[in-house]
């Protein structure tokens, strides 16, 4: 990243602290603001990719203090207002810089992912290998076969190159089916569970609304949480956004799919194009059915497979680097999926290997354009440059895995996880949607998780101490010490030596 603009005095019109004087720094990746008043410390760090709209407010004739400046709308649930002096051309300069670098694609510039030179220990692009993933699921077998029919994306340009299709289906049949389906998207396997191909289909309508409804719903949610949380009739206001209701319908749809699959039926999941609702339902159902996807790496595979490879139109839904903020193709479908995953982690605190921090990181980089992972609409468009020229988000994650691990995780392979899709249990994800509110203490981790990690460290410290004591014994008596925790026999021995410095009752 390089600096484009720095150290200019600016006033940040904070919704919480009022006008805050400070310095602004703009690079080709981020907008950074720090207050100069010793009294209030306000810091802003916004990736330009998160900006959906930049507008000038006030004109030459504007009266009133701080009415002249910039109004920035972000994709991540916040709005920022800056006031500037009318003299000079600082507003024009900042506006043009922001406009150009927040929307590089509208200006013939590359996305930041192509500019950055970040290096990581692990290459995240290797996380998902389709044939290996099919093999893990026991494919091919006598019901399903792997086809390379789409090798050069000539069957369906929005599908991946490697597909699993019913064993008996002939290549020419697939081509004929493709001709009939919307954008040639033939049915292919999601969960990879054995079944009777596509026969005995039972039609279930799930009543889930379209992408426009979801977009409006999230917009309404933003209205009631930013800048201030609606004080009166909060729950009624929340209900009227319908956001949790949509989350509920998606989750309960996925539960129905998972239930059918686990009882031995095959399920064809589809929506009009098969890249929005379908991706949500298949990936959530797979998360419920297959514990592998609940691991840190497995979850990355799931996103790569069901979202990225199967052609969720990230570019259109998010609008990376594009100035057209009112584009009707934009919709928070992926955010909704991550919200559903979060709801599941809340109901089953020990079932997922990853923690909330991973989900927050994924959503932050969904917009940031720092990684190649969520760019483009489908594999065919991505193939040409992304893997070689950009860094994968999973490189970042897998190079520092421990901060994304859930200490409570208890692997239970083969367990099918059915969340309760009821309003009684669905909660607003406040640590995501209301995280910009300074009234809420910024926490890296949930307090429960943090406390558990502290206790784990304490346990290890005691184990080390005990080991040291036993080692110093064995040097004189050459006896191997028993594993301390594996022994809880109730032998009572009079303590001859008190380690007073360790008497630490809880």
């Amino acid at each position, binding site marked *: 990243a390089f600096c484009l603009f720095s150290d200019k005095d600016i006033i940040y019109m904070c919704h919480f602290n009022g006008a805050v004087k400070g310095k602004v720094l703009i690079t080709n990746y981020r907008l950074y603001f720090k207050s100069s008043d010793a009294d209030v410390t306000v810091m802003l760090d916004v990736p330009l990719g998160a900006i959906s709209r930049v507008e000038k407010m006030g004109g030459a004739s504007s009266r009133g203090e701080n009415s002249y400046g910039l109004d920035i709308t972000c994709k991540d649930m916040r709005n920022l207002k800056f006031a500037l002096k009318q003299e000079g051309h600082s507003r024009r300069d900042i506006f043009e810089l922001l406009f150009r670098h927040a929307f590089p694609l509208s200006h013939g510039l590359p996305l930041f992912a192509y500019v950055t030179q970040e290096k990581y220990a692990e290459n995240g692009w290797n996380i998902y290998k389709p044939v290996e993933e099919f093999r893990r699921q026991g494919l091919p077998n006598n019901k399903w076969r792997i086809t390379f029919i789409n090798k050069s994306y000539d069957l369906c340009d929005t599908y991946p190159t490697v597909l699993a299709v019913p064993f008996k289906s002939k290549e020419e049949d697939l081509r004929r089916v493709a001709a009939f389906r919307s954008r040639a998207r033939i049915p292919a396997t999601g969960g990879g569970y054995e079944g009777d191909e596509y026969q005995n289909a039972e039609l279930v309508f799930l009543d889930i609304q379209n992408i426009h409804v979801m977009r409006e719903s999230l917009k309404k949610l933003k209205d009631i949480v930013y800048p201030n949380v609606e004080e009166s009739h909060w*729950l009624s206001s929340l209900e009227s956004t319908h956001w*949790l209701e949509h989350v509920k319908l998606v989750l309960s749809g996925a539960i129905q799919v998972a239930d059918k699959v686990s009882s031995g039926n095959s399920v064809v999941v589809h929506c009009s194009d098969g890249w929005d609702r379908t991706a949500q339902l298949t990936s959530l159902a797979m998360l419920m059915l297959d514990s592998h996807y609940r691991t840190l790496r497995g979850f990355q595979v799931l996103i790569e497979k069901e979202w990225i490879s199967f052609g969720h139109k990230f570019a259109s839904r998010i609008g990376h680097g594009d100035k057209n903020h009112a584009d009707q193709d934009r919709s928070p479908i992926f955010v909704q999926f991550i919200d559903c995953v979060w709801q599941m982690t809340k109901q089953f*605190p020990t079932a997922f290997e990853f923690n909330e921090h991973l989900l927050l990181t994924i959503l932050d980089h969904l917009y940031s354009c720092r990684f190649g992972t969520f760019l483009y609409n489908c594999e065919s468009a991505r193939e040409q440059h992304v893997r070689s020229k950009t860094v994968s988000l999973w490189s970042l994650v897998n190079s520092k895995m421990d901060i994304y691990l859930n200490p409570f995780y208890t692997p239970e392979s083969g367990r099918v996880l059915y969340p309760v899709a009821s309003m009684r249990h669905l909660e607003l994800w*406040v640590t995501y949607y209301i995280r910009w509110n300074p009234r809420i203490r910024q926490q890296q981790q949930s307090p429960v998780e943090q406390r558990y990690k502290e206790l784990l460290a*304490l346990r290890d410290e005691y184990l080390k101490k005990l080991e040291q004591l036993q080692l110093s014994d064995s040097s*004189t008596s050459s006896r191997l010490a028993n594993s301390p925790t594996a*022994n809880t026999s*109730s*032998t009572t021995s009079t303590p001859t030596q008190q380690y007073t410095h360790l008497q630490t009752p809880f």
Partner: protein
Amino acid sequence: LHQHCCKIFTFLLTVGVTLSFFFICLSPGEIVVNEVNFVRKCISAESNQDDPWGKLICTNFKVSFIPQEAPPKQKSQLSHLLLGEHDIPLTCLEQVVTVNDTKGKKKVLGSNQKLKFNPTELILYCKDLRIIRFCFDEAGPESARKVCLAIAHYSHPADLQLLFGFEYQGRRYHECKVNGSTPRGGMQTPIFDRPSDWDREIKRTSASEWRVCSINESYAISPSLPEYIVVPVSLADQDLKQYSLYFTDRRIPLWCWNHPNGSALVRMACIVDPLHQRKIDQRIFTAITKSHTQRSEVIRSDLDKCLPNIQDIQSAFVKVRQICVLDPFEESEERWLSSIDNSRWLEYVRAFLKHSAEIVYYLEGKNVSVILQEEEDRDLNCVVSSLVQLMLDPHYRSLIGFQSLVQKEWVMAGHRFLDRCNHLKKNYKEESPLFMLFLDCVWQMMNQYPAAFEFTEAYLTVLSDSMWIPLFSTFLFSSPKQRAQHLMDFAKNKAIPQGEDQVVYFPPVWEWSQQFSIKDQTLFNNPMYVGKGAACVQNGEVKTFRRTKKTYSSTLRGTATLMRNGLKEGEDTLTRRGSLVSELKSEFSAVKDESPSERFFRDWFSRPADQQGLLIPLSMPSHVALWKLFFLRWVPEACIPRGGPITAYHKLSQLVDEIEILQSQLRQYKGPSPGNTPLPSPSGPPSDQRRMYFKASYPDDPATTPDFFTSSFPFTPVGNLCRRSVYGTPISKFLNGARIWLSTETLANDTV
């Protein structure tokens, strides 16, 4: 004792005792009143295939159902020592409803009533939110009718002394006496019925300008105040006696707590005589100012003016209960959030938390003493004073500290438990779940600061359930005087030697071994608790935070600066207007013109929270949640199988148990023994001393989530919530639970 009832049931009594002798567990003093066989307990609304059959019994303590076939004993959940899985204490019954399905009749039964039809079923609405339904399709109609009448009759005791505790504790006392009892049953919770308990509290909080006053000994001044109270040293007994005449119920101001900065929390009733108001106010305020080490001013918060009243709270609770357990599950899904909103329960919880935080700001941030004032000083003041202390003083977040807080601010301060719980089911207008509201507020704080409390939400839930078991002196009386009188009469009647300690012969709820085994009581322990002297790892070294009593004053330094800033900028909004009294306003202004208290809160929230310091709950509506374990534990549809918070608690509990074993091993560690004698392996503490419910796991333990883990743990929804699903039948409109449960008074007189 049961004279007039016995007339009706004499013959049944004799039969009952002999028949049920081998099946029912009777507590000392418990007798079977009536019973009926071949009863079906409805456990699911749809099919009756799994419904257990058995005998329904009414005793003078409980309604009991004894299944014919013993169900497989469910492991690892809270089992009550006196109450079985299917038992309901009579005091826990809110409403007894009989139904005749074929005739389309129903009747809410009260005491001494007639029933003109043979009931086909009995629905029991319980105060702990259970709804239990029995069907008599195979039972003798006459016996069924009699059992229903007996249950209705015995659940409406004519007199307080008829509550089972008075029979039970007498027997228990004499039985225990044989073994000899330790003073106060070994109980550590101070009761505040003696000067020493108050003295200790004065010393603990360094309230040197306050003294224990005994003018109310033998309740000479006020029947609702405790015998010993704490007052400013500058006020003489004679003055206090004189002032007492002007207060409601002669309740002079009561000291609650002292902040290390010298400011005090005081509660008082209203002054009855408006002519003397100014004069008395002035004297009280001067005395409190004198007792402040920095002679700071005093402000007063009139809780009647800014908080919901007891009727509001009651109606909110009735609504939220209705939404949670009565409304059909699926149909209420769509409007769930707005229904909860419209009940206003969470709004009230929030109001109390917010107001208490505001008081904390005055004590901590502004260094002034606060008087909580309420008409009678026996309801809202109990909630607010205890919440304020819970936020400011970590001592009250320990188990013993919390119990002493309830004892001090509720039981001894004269909260009308008898009336508010409506144990005698006489005056519904006085009923109000204030203590429940307090427990919900505590839960909200616990939810936000999970490592700050020594106890768990299971403890709070069990405590709320204990209100409906009439065995403890804690929840049975409306004032200290009433308690003393009843217990004195009781002692006389039961031949308990004079001078015996009330706590020994009629123990409070705090003696938990009355209800649960030592093992089950470990469910109350929060493995996350960061208590005094908690060990932690710093830079790879185990360190112990040894804390002095006044650790919480560490928060003071920061706030003192803040206050100076506040004053410097002239933001002091307190109005004085020549009066000593500054009325406390609770208004939350818009962001830009931030009030000093908002600034105080913002400053506090910008720093990391110290679990052993001041804790302020977030009171934004988005951060006040429905207490699911309490409200939804019986709802089968809302139960998350093999999920919920218990799965994390399980792992925490195992880890802490392992740590405690290691600690004990390190303490007991012996050096190498001389010679070649094998070294006894260092052991953990004996299992009865282990504090954790779940024991450390072994490497070869299967790592699966036990089946009994549900979001309702340690409770089970099976058979505890049977709503009727009889839509479309003529009876359905009668059986709309809402109408039955909500309009107690109107329906009680509704005869069929």
